[in-house]
């Protein structure tokens, strides 16, 4: 019996966004097919893993995660370097939080200095996130952006309510921008429109649709990713941006990761739970169309690297 495969072909392409410069630059996006369906179109760039590095040890992390990260966790520069040398990551996702502290906050200059040091020590392209608090972030973005000027970083995030400062500064200093939306496909598009209207080039935007962890509303963002990708491949240019997902920070906050073994003996080893919870959060979003996943646990990173290799290997 001969079976004619049902193949979808799409006439449109996801934009390619390049983060970083020179040899270590990383390009994401560029797909003309749904995730990993290589027979139907191209996936010229593999999805990428970005290592989350924090300017202070996150106080919500489990001992398992802190231990797996190692002593370097106390020095963000060493932490990032370990990511390059031991875990083989290709992108650093720096999370700035200390400038938003009530007491004794870090100055914008402190933040900029840290970002510069990490960029120099690792030589990797940088993603830099603010604390998600409007006022302190607004003061920090321009200073950090300028310090990294010309390095074509990915800075975030711009939201529907607050995008002007960041967009202007990204344009001035030659960076890419993250457009954030609250699990809402229309707002996702709206942010892209607002940011491009200010003069940001379409191939300098990565969208962050806001994602829950496995078990915490994963299905909403999962479907938003699928809808976004289908709309883009169908020709909606303002949806055709690569997608970034926070697989690590979201999943590592889950009850299923944090609960101690004596609280929930029926859930089994916590060390394994933490790794698999983060990794399956990542695989789910990769299967829905994520181009960059930010991750925390070194072992989950290893698993996802292996996973991406398998799903990109068309030999």
């Amino acid at each position, binding site marked *: 019996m001969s079976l004619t495969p049902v193949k979808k072909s799409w006439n449109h392409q996801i934009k390619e966004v390049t983060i970083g410069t020179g040899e270590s630059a990383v390009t994401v996006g560029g797909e003309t097919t749904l995730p990993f369906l290589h027979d139907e179109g191209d996936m010229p760039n593999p999805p990428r893993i970005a290592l989350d590095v924090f300017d202070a040890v996150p106080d919500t992390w489990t001992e398992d995660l802190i231990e797996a990260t190692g002593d370097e966790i106390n020095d963000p520069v060493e932490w990032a370097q370990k990511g390059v040398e031991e875990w083989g990551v290709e992108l650093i996702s720096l999370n700035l939080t200390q400038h938003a502290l009530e007491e004794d906050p870090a100055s914008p200059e402190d933040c900029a200095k840290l970002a510069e040091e990490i960029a120099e020590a690792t030589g990797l392209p940088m993603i830099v996130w603010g604390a998600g608090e409007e006022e302190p972030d607004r003061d920090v973005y321009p200073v950090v952006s300028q310090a990294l000027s010309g390095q074509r970083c990915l800075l975030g995030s711009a939201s529907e309510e607050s995008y002007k400062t960041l967009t202007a500064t990204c344009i001035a200093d030659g960076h890419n921008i993250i457009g954030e939306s609250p699990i809402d496909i229309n707002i996702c598009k709206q942010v892209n429109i607002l940011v491009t209207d200010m003069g940001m080039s379409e191939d300098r935007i990565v969208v962050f649709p806001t994602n829950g962890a496995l*078990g915490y*509303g994963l299905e909403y963002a999962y479907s938003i990713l699928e809808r976004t990708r289908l709309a883009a491949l169908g020709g909606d240019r303002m949806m055709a941006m690569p997608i970034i997902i926070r697989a690590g920070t979201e999943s590592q906050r889950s009850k299923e990761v944090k609960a101690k073994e004596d609280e929930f003996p029926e859930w089994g080893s916590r060390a394994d739970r933490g790794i698999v919870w983060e990794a399956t959060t990542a*695989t789910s979003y990769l299967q829905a169309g994520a181009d960059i996943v930010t991750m925390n646990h070194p072992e989950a990173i290893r698993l996802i690297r292996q996973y991406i290799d398998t799903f990109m290997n068309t030999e």
Partner: protein
Amino acid sequence: MSMTAMEIYALLPQTNCGECGTPTCLAFAMQLANKQATLDSCPDASDEARAALAAAAEPPITLVEIGSGDEQIEIGNETVMFRHEETFHHQCGLCVCIADDAEDAEERIEKAGELWFERIGDMIGAELVAIEDRSGDPDRFAELVSAVVQNDKQSPVLITSDPDLVRSTFEAVEGLAEARPLVHGADAENWSDMADIAAEYDVPLGVSADGLEALAELTPQIKDKGVDQMVLDPGGDDQLQTMEQLTQIRRQALDNNFRPLGYPTIAFARGDDPRKVAVDASTYVSKYAGVVVIEGEEPWQLLPLATLRQNLYTDPRVPPAVEAKLYEVGEPTEDSPVVLTTNFALTYFTVVNEIEASRVPAWVVVVDTEGQSVLTAYSSENLNAEVAAEAIKEVGLEEKVNHRDVIIPGYIAVMSGALEEESGWNVTVGPREATAIPTFMRRLVS
């Protein structure tokens, strides 16, 4: 897969005789396409037309039942490739696979029996336990299958390509036929004997073949033997190929209404690295498998898979709601803060998760807003001062805490005054976004 009016029209006599009650065959075809009429009204309809319409009315992916009684699961009968297009209807079965040459197989069966977890009011876990023939010893195989039946926590799956072994196991294990195991199964060599056994015992049959074409050749032959409860195993050299095949089978069924592949599927995650096994299996949960088999029985493997399945098989058309009542986060005391939110599941889980992250024990009053989020509920009047005051009263908080302070979501700050009046409680306005909750909570108690 429904037919269009023009496709139906092509099959009608095209004589416009009017017997059916409509003046033309085309008008009748339109009624049929809209399911406003049945073909019985046309006396001259051909057998071919009847068969085509009957086939079109059948679901494109057969519903398959595995197990019996409380343990029965239904898989298949899916209608879409993407859950947002409608919903995924029948969640995949999760199956733990135990080889019969494992010395500790009995212990593993016991352990598999415990793989049930309560999550958002549902019991989720592994519904199936497979015994895989590797020892070549029929007594050992039957003994373990029997242990699964006896354990009575999951339905059995028999994995072997030896029809004699299947037959002897059915004879040896009491209650096996009644438990309606999945027999996996048939292949290009043994399909005839396997189909006979499946027909005789009336059990579902797994079918594997080398490639989808070979699979599509086998299933009609098995069906001719009276077995229509089939589960397709497309195999694959690696996880990528398996995912591609599962996708293609679903598309052949939905886009082409291709009957030979119109069955639910089964996919295996195996290997030496138990974490990788769980990760690989997650792909098959999202990408179309009807049964996901994993080699391993660790709760930390099954819990994420069952949770992912629960997430993805949630009907996106229904706003998911949690029960409106008083929830405890941590171990709150009479001094602990009281937080008010809506019963939209996503809002609830986000809020609770952030409060947990703050490590400040708290009482959470969940108001019945018909599953709407804070802002939606506020604008639709499902959440106003009266409703909120009523909720605070109903849950009996006044006996549980020694203060009268309630924290409300930042988005409904305008309601503070009215709520204070209505309830007699002092209102504190909390953050708008849940991510700010941990800082807020810690500040509150410091």
